[in-house]
């Protein structure tokens, strides 16, 4: 069952890659739609980030001093200034681990 879902997701992903290159004329997408598409990452990823940080495993809001909030803030600061993907992820994980294992 899950395999079928993966295959459908794969075919759909392939279509997003292939449609504009091989099937339709490229001017089919107007400039306005192209501009909106540049916002896709900013529109999609916070919908994953926010619940993963502010909600616990049972879907309830976490406390303000939760280590996840601390880790996320560190990651945002490190990411913003270092522009380094690896540094962003590991600074967040490391600060999270320091809080849960040491304090």
């Amino acid at each position, binding site marked *: 069952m*899950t*395999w*079928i*879902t*993966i295959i*459908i*997701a*794969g075919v*759909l*992903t*392939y279509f*997003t*890659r*292939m*449609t*504009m*290159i*091989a099937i339709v004329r*490229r001017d089919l*997408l107007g400039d*306005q739609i192209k*501009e*909106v*598409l*540049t*916002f*896709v*990452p*900013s*529109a*999609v*990823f*916070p*919908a*994953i*980030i*926010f*619940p*993963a*940080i*502010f*909600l616990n495993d049972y*879907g309830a809001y976490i406390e303000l001093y939760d280590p*996840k909030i601390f*880790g*996320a803030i560190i*990651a*945002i600061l490190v*990411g*913003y200034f270092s*522009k380094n*993907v*690896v540094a*962003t*992820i590991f600074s*967040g*994980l490391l600060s*999270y*681990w320091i809080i*849960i294992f040491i304090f």
Partner: protein
Amino acid sequence: MLSKKQLFTKGMVDVTPHMLSVIPFGIITGAIGIDLGFNPYLVYGMSVIIFGGASQIVFLQLLSGGASSLVAVTSVGVINSRHLLYGAVLSEYLEKLSLMKKLLISYIVVDQGFAESNKFFKHNKKEQYLHYHLIGTGCTLWVCWQVATLSGIILGSFVPEELGLKFAIPLTFIAIVVQDLKKIDHVIVMIVSGISSLLFFDLPFKSYIIISPIVALFIAALLLRLKK
């Protein structure tokens, strides 16, 4: 005029700096799949069938959280809709290729490869075998992604659950969007998306993952209109 081989190699070289983020990202994707309790073959199969980092993580996260297949597939579609943009930009340079070649090349269009090849295309419009640069970036990224996710799957079976590796999911996505915090319109769109995801979190089938981006894209369109 550069030869096919030279262009292919140039593509490989140009995309190399991205390995620094692609490889850890792949390892995390594999490890998280195992951490969430999925069959290793399934986690790896996605790297070949879907071949899209962010969407693979979201897909696994949603299914493990009890989302319906329809929601998981739709969210993969929403996340990967950005490829439409890449395709529209690249098609100008790939126009002369046969349909078969276009169909094959499409499979390896990913973020980092698009970024580097598009940069190269802009400055080398006259090259005859331009597309070999894209094949170079795409194939390099494909091989790295396969090796990285496989390593992650193997590593994932050793990572103790207490480490809370799941927290790497939001961190990975923070790393992807953090540079856009410099642009005020992107910040607004991000806040709208984030707050809607919390508001709609309890809707059935995890549909918040589709509703929130749609609300946020609507706001983005509105902002674009206001700017003009």
